[in-house]
């Protein structure tokens, strides 16, 4: 048929010259299909879906977020949205919107820079607006969730800046406007606290909680004593949230809880160890990018590296250890099929443990039994870094 097909391609009108020989069992041809035709997504994503940040190392300017159906082996890639140049991604729970904090240049890699928050519609994945961030100071860092967070019931967002002076820009998402900046000398990352405020970690080991007034200005500030030993028990910057409690794990495997329900951060002072195990060279330590996750029941999941030592904390892990925060003990170990870099647990009735690997593969496990369920292969992202359950 090849030559026939060719001839048709250049002169389909002459197609009657074409005489396929084989008989055929189908009376009617396949129906014509309508164009244009563009897919849409549900306004509320199913609980088996996650949002993956794809850093796209070989073209950082062209980073993106990917909506991934972890229940589908064949079609996990549901859609993508732009997340340009060390962008941060934030997914709303009270609105059908995703927000990206990005940077653009008028000549791709040169020219005038514009920092902006882009608003994406979850159903159409089209950009529906943007909020320009003034001063060109948006923090550009490998994707963390706590550089871009909600407060005030998701009506506002907090964006971290680094020049290298630290500050936070308060943005009214509903009003599509910037409310102002808050200088935070020596303090980094934002953890939503109370109704309208946040907590930030400071370089002297203290935590500072800031309450905002209705105009987005500082209403009150409270700083704890130094409780973070950054030298010997540094906490990974990304916590697992169990309700209003932020659970952090340290490079050396200590688990620490902080209650963010009130206006002021409240350390639970109930630290415990992820535990130890044989086979460590020299020891098991947390390792990877997003290394701690929680499930709906409050259990914690920590990605563990058997080659734990100073400097191993981004090398990924071969097991996930499951922790009971009430009993303060490890209740399960899940062996992974590959070296994981980031983990997340879905909110499905049968929750799944999602493991993004360093080789771009995403694997899915039964969070309760640890049984391997399926792999999504490399079909979702080039460089999956953060994973966000719906």
């Amino acid at each position, binding site marked *: 048929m090849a030559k026939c097909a060719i001839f048709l391609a250049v002169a389909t009108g002459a197609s009657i010259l074409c005489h396929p020989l084989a008989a055929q069992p189908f009376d009617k041809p396949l129906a014509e299909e309508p164009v244009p035709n563009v897919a849409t997504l549900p306004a509320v994503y199913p609980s088996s879906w996650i949002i993956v940040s794809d850093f796209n190392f070989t073209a950082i300017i062209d980073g993106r977020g990917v909506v991934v159906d972890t229940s589908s082996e064949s079609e996990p*890639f549901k859609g993508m949205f732009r997340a340009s140049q060390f962008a941060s991604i934030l997914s709303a729970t009270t609105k059908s919107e995703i927000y990206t904090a990005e940077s653009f240049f008028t000549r791709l890699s040169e020219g005038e820079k514009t920092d902006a928050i882009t608003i994406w519609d979850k159903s159409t994945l089209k950009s529906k607006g943007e909020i320009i961030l003034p001063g060109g100071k948006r923090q550009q860092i490998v994707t963390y969730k706590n550089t871009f967070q909600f407060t005030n019931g998701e009506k506002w967002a907090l964006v971290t800046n680094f020049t290298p002076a630290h500050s936070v820009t308060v943005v009214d998402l509903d009003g599509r406007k910037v409310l102002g900046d808050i200088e935070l000398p020596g303090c980094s990352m934002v953890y939503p606290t109370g109704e309208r405020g946040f907590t930030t970690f400071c370089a002297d080991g203290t935590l500072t909680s800031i309450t905002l007034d209705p105009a987005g200005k500082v209403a009150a500030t409270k700083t704890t004593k130094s409780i973070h030993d950054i030298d010997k028990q540094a906490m990974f910057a990304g916590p697992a949230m169990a309700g209003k409690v932020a659970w952090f794990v340290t490079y050396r495997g200590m688990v620490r809880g902080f209650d963010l329900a009130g206006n002021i951060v409240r350390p639970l002072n109930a630290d415990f160890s992820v535990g130890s195990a044989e086979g460590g060279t020299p020891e098991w330590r947390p390792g990877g990018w997003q290394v701690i996750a929680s499930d709906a029941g409050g259990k914690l999941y920590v990605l563990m590296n058997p080659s734990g030592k100073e400097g191993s904390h981004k090398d990924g892990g071969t097991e996930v250890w499951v922790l009971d925060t009430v009993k303060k003990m490890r209740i399960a170990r899940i062996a992974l099929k590959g070296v994981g870099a980031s983990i997340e647990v879905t909110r499905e009735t049968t929750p799944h443990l999602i493991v993004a690997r360093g080789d771009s593969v995403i694997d899915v496990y039964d969070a309760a039994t640890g049984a391997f369920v399926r792999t999504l292969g490399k079909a979702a992202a080039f460089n999956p870094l953060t994973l966000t359950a719906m």
Partner: protein
Amino acid sequence: MADFDKFAEKLTRGVARGTSRRSLLAWLGGAATGAAVFPVLPVSRANAQSAGHGGGSADRAPVLSGNAQDPGDRTQCDYWRYCAIDGFLCTCCGGSVNTCPPGTEMSPITWIGTCTNPADKRAYIVSYNDCCGKSSCGQCLCNRNEGDRPPVRPQANNDTNWCLGTESQIYNCSTAVIIGVATDPR
């Protein structure tokens, strides 16, 4: 030839949507000097990532039509509709064989191929509409060139970015839409 009329009319609407009347005439003028009976427009790009034809990796889970008359895995480059496609397969990008992914815009005019369905032995006219407005999907790059000709005959060349007449010219992926039947088997 009812199929052809419908399809030509569809296409003309498409061209009219995508281009100014003046440029359309200029272009048709050019095309008319070529061998094509009516315009079959190119849109595609070469595959430098593999000397083969590409498509999804072998270990990808298949996407099937569930219709015995439309056989084959739509994530693989050897699927029958892809005989003249060139780009990322939308089936792997959040769309489908005939649907653009969410947030993209389908190019109004496209390069047309004619591919034979191994099940019913009919030759179908397949429209490779591009999906535009988001960056390279990066999944299932596929390149087949039956009937492809140099850019001197744009209506038969598949290297051009056909995200033209769309809001954004950024290319995301390519579909393979059945828009007619070229031949009924004897």
